[in-house]
């Protein structure tokens, strides 16, 4: 097990390094004109533009810039934003914004799992019945209609109907409800449809038929065997989903005016904020890789059929 963990750690470090170097180099290919607006070109001459670029640190050669970035990361200094929030330390920005995305994300994930899994079980148990029909209808609506439409309608109607604030306010807990529910809606559908599918798959397997033939009650088969086995593939994604809640939701944070991380990376790329992009890519890459790794460990823990450090050194 230890050797497996060490091997995965090594692979993860190489993956993160490749991601970071690729992103770093791609950012250096962006045209410098992106740092100037139309008005800047009118106001500034060549020397002022060059001086401005130098003040941002983007005129140094890429090797110097990379050493500065990597050295800073090692020392815990992630640099300062250069164009989205000029001069603000990147770590301060992340510390300010991440908790909003994290807490909303975790609450939504809890709701998604609670309701989604329950719905999935009911749909599988009553396949082609009323729960399945309504569950499928819900999943189809959520996935087929562009989310912007129903998110917006929920915001308009529910806030108007109940007299709730339209946007998020930290000191008004009632304003936290709709963004959380809105965030959970797709998650509920995702858990429901996949759990249903895996449970139906399991139900058709021989061991279930055998257990039924032995006279084991259906409820017990469903709970002890079908549900447990159907959860295995879903559990694999759980750690990643938890960790990446930090990335936030561009759409929901925007319409509810939540100052989270959603849209930060997109903004940073658009404004060529190299230190911010690099830090976010590093953060998301590390969290993504850790999430996959933890998912594998979790899967091995709940499913005795899976051995991570077997004879072939991989999953069996």
């Amino acid at each position, binding site marked *: 097990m230890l050797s497996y963990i060490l091997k995965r750690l090594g692979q993860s470090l190489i993956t993160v390094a490749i991601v970071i170097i690729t992103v770093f180099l791609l950012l250096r290919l962006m045209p410098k004109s992106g740092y100037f607006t139309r008005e800047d070109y009118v*106001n500034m001459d060549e020397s002022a533009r060059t001086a401005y670029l*130098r003040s941002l640190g983007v005129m140094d050669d890429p090797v110097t810039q990379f050493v500065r970035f990597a050295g800073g990361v090692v020392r815990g200094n992630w640099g300062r934003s250069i164009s989205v929030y000029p001069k603000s330390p990147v770590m301060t920005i992340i510390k300010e914004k991440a908790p909003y995305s994290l807490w909303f994300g975790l609450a939504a994930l809890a709701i998604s799992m609670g309701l989604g899994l329950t719905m999935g079980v009911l749909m599988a148990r009553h396949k082609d019945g009323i729960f399945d029909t309504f569950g499928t209808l819900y999943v189809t609506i959520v996935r087929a209609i562009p989310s912007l439409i129903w998110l917006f309608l929920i915001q308009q109607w529910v806030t108007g109907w109940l007299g709730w604030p339209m946007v998020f306010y930290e000191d008004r807990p009632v304003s936290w409800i709709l963004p959380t529910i809105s965030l959970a809606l797709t998650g509920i559908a995702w858990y429901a449809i996949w759990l249903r599918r895996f449970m139906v798959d399991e139900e058709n397997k021989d061991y279930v038929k055998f257990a039924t033939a032995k006279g084991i009650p259906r409820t017990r088969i469903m709970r002890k065997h079908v549900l447990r086995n159907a959860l295995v593939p879903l559990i694999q994604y759980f750690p990643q989903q938890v960790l990446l809640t930090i990335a936030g939701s561009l759409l929901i944070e925007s319409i509810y005016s939540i100052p989270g991380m959603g849209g930060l990376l997109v903004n940073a790329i658009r404004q060529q904020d190299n230190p911010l992009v690099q830090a976010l890519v590093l953060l998301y890459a590390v969290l993504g890789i850790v999430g996959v790794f933890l998912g594998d460990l979790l899967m091995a823990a709940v499913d005795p059929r899976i051995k991570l450090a077997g004879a072939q050194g991989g999953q069996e």
Partner: protein
Amino acid sequence: MKRRYLIVALGLALCALAAVGAQDRYYATYTAEGSSLRYFYTPDTTDQRIAANTQDGLVEQDRFGRFVPSLAERWEASPDSKVWTFYLRKDVPWVDSKGQKTKYEITADDFVEGFRYVADPKNGIKNLSKDIRRMIVGLNDYYLDLVDFDAGKIKDKTRDQLLGNFAKVGVKALDKYTVQYTLARPTPYFLSFLVMELFLPVEKEFLDSVGENFGISKENLLFSGAYYISDWQRDKQIVLKANPLYWDAKSVTVKTVSLQKIVDPTITLQMFQRGELSSATLTAEQVKALAGTKWADNVFMAEPSTVTYWFVQNFTSANPEFKAFVNNLNFRKALYYGLDRAKLNELDDPYQPAATLRNTVVPEQAAFDEKGKDYADYPEVKAIRDAGNYYDKAKAQDYFRKALAEVTDGKGTIKGVQPATVDWKPIAELKIDGKLPLQMVYVYLPGATETKRAFLFKAMLEDLFGKDNIQVTLAQVIDDIFAEAVEPRRFDMLHDNFRFGFADPSAQLGRLVTKGAVNDGEFSDPEFDKLVDEASQKTVLSERFKIFSKAEALFIDRCYVYPWRMGGASYMLSKVVPFTYPRGGFGITRFKYKGMIVQKDPLTSKQYEELKKAFYEEMNKATAK
């Protein structure tokens, strides 16, 4: 005469009525987060709004747009307008983010220090334009020396030694309460620069203590303005509270300003309708949607800005067909009379498209001579301004026929143009055959309105002059019209807009001369250049304006660009009593909330129109000398 007094009295009565229900809180929204609280760097309106309300400069603009004392209680200029001396108010303290008095007093050194900060290239203050660097004695040399040092070109001096040369720059504290600016050339309109963020003060000891962290949070700032930042949450909200130690505290009617970041205009409108906001700007679609509702009577059109939109044509185009035509005055005149501005403006304002047309490059209500006369009222430009939508189909077709006669051989071949391929990839690629129809490329930004305008522009010209004679190719850039089209010269015609920088016609005309900063068409007219140069030499404003107005009339007559629409002038719903707060066409003090009255109920459009009428009467009386 009696009627006028009646209107003024009515306006004052309405103001008084509004004041009865006056609110001491103002709630508004912003769509884009400011870059930082570092008030010398204000690339967008949110930054400017915060800077204007939390910091005071030497002068500010009042509700009539006049320059009035702010932290300077008086000033004097040398007869040649080159030396400007400002005398500060005494005992005005800097306050912190709790609104409490600090140990620092606002002194002349703070203004010198502010400019020292702005002039150091390491601080990345983009707005320090080359024109301002050349305006203040010694500033350009000081700045360029530091630039050269940072680039490694100066090795025999230390950076500190070069920073010491700031003593040679024409910004000086003569004593604790006197600051003096020495300018390189006569600048009678210098006060209009002082309403920019570049001329704000900063406390040196405090600045040194916070270093690189200056302005990254409210705690890393001191405040000299009408408000201090009591709460700031990135991408969420900004709360300003009235500064209890402000030198002009009695003028601050609204005690708390709460600004929230709301990106979607639909949410802003809903919040206003639910009573959660004091004002909301409306899109054209929202105005249409409100028609017939109980809110229809509350919609009014706010005042225009000094931003002017114009169509730019490329006089050095790599498309030889267009180049041949655009350098023909009759062709340009054909376009001048052929563009139906009101029709084009219907896309932005379906109700009063003619109300926001502007035919001149210098806006009205932006530059006044020593007698208080608006530059826009000088006869040469007034005639152009009063013409309104000068669309004239018959004239346009007549000029086009003349152009065809001059530019083609009469059989459809454009003189001197050989078949060629115009490679403007990724925007456009054209096969040129040197024959009619004339092919021209219209470049536009993405977005529903700009796209519709491009199609309308094409249809307008092709219908008017015939598809056999002209064919407009539409080419869309991704998001940066300058980097993608203007700089690489990939356009025949494009739509652009420019703001007006300071209170002198040279702010626009001075940068439209040959090789001027906004001469994107690369036209050259020695006669126009000469007039602009001649006007710039005059130190008496009325003499300057007279020559500038001649230059602008010539410029418009020769159709180098086609100015056509004002910026601003958006439809609004608001509880803010208009014209109670500072006004101006440039700089940041126009964004002050000082003096603003917020009434309990939304304004009605009737109330707005009455207040507007009364205000203009009052302003004309107040500004006439």
